[in-house]
């Protein structure tokens, strides 16, 4: 077309809006239906531009999320621990103020120490066991029993206060798993449990959390996708694993 393309700015904006409808948003979010996903994959085969668009919107994935979280945390300067400033202030206080401050400091000192990092040392279920890190989803079937062992990176103090929980996540679905927990003297935690018999087949994320009793996080707050790095707070550590549930054999 030989006319000035600037004349068509409005029409080109409308064309762009029409070209990238909300299916592309759902592609990025990983929430396309099978039919829509097939449509966009087919479209991506029609031209270099469509292929480029497909690549641009293809989900960035759990590893990308983890890297972003890490970089945000690295970029944020953590303020110095308040406990040190508090102690200095205690020395200057007198009378009831000093008593109150000392009581508060005592509460702080009586708090259980921060948990070290944990990693998934072994997980077994169905007919196979996986040791250490794995990039392949672990394959189980509904009703399978499983055992998972989490080991601390350093010694854990007050191991008698440790507890654990496990849950399965997929999209907005959440299954809390009933588990028995054993803790050894070094703080390693072993969980024994079984999957629900009515668990739908497909890809799930297993989250295993170890933490201080009464301080474990609500499983509803855990992500539905696996994270390469454990999630950590002062009183708990959550480790995830991609899990593929196959239909129960007849």
């Amino acid at each position, binding site marked *: 077309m030989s006319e000035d393309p600037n004349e068509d700015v409005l029409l080109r904006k409308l064309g762009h809006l029409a070209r990238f409808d909300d299916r592309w948003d759902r592609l*990025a979010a990983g929430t396309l239906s099978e039919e829509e996903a097939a449509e966009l994959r087919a479209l991506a085969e029609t031209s270099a531009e469509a292929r480029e668009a497909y*690549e641009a919107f293809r989900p960035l994935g759990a590893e990308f999320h983890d890297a972003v979280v890490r*970089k945000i945390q690295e970029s*944020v300067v953590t303020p110095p621990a308040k406990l040190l400033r508090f102690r200095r202030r205690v020395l200057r206080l007198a009378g009831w103020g000093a008593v109150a401050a000392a009581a508060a400091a005592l509460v702080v000192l009586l708090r259980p120490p921060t948990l070290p990092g944990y990693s998934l040392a072994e997980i077994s279920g169905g007919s196979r066991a996986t040791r250490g890190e794995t990039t392949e989803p672990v394959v189980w079937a509904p009703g399978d029993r499983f055992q998972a062992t989490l080991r601390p990176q350093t010694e854990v103090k007050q191991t008698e206060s440790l507890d654990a929980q496990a849950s399965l996540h997929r999209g907005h679905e959440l299954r809390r798993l009933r588990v028995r927990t054993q803790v050894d003297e070094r703080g390693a935690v072993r969980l024994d449990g079984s999957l629900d018999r009515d668990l739908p087949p497909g890809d799930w994320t297993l989250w295993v959390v170890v933490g201080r009793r009464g301080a474990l996080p609500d499983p509803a707050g855990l992500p539905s996708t696996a994270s390469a790095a454990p999630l950590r707070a002062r009183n708990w550590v959550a480790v995830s694993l991609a899990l593929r549930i196959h239909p129960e054999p007849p």
Partner: protein
Amino acid sequence: MGAEDTVGLVGEALAGDQLALTRLVAILTPVVQARVARTLLARRPWLAGGRDIRQEVEDLTQEIFLALFSRSAHVLRSWQAERGLSLENFVGLVSERHVVSFLRSGKRTRSKEDLATGEELEATAAESGPEEEAASREQLQLLLERLRQSLSPLGRQVFELLFVQELSLPEAMAASGLSADAVYAWRSRLRRHARELLAELSSSSSAPRKPEEGAPG
């Protein structure tokens, strides 16, 4: 997620709760990615040749998150749910401005200072607020719907060929069976009609729509 939950989640993430931060990043990543992708693809000629679009999307998405959280997260903290814009829309608009600014700068890579300050975001925010930009986006969507409703099947086909599929003149001629003169004539009619509809929407966005008279058909 409701507005109240979103406000709570942002507050927890800003207070250093790792779980909340992880959830927030998981929720916002597809929003940022999709807006980056749209903005880059709409301005593809601005992007230096040979640059991998996937890599650009990843780099820019990460940059935008760092810009949101830099300087005590002053950009993210400027979001106020009570002003009516959802967090997703707010972050989407911040993302779009960031990409446009990146493309205008013509830099192959942006310096850390660029990423950290977010001053460009503030400067452009002073020109037009996110609410105004969101309104203009909604208006464009409405305009598209009205254009499609008011066009004849042939008019819609020419619009699809020339502006959605972005075919060349010979390709559009072959696909529609129209002559070059007819395609040119359609393009002029479409342009005029789109402007008329835009003027109508701008002058009276809430008034009931009058029947289209003289619409291309």
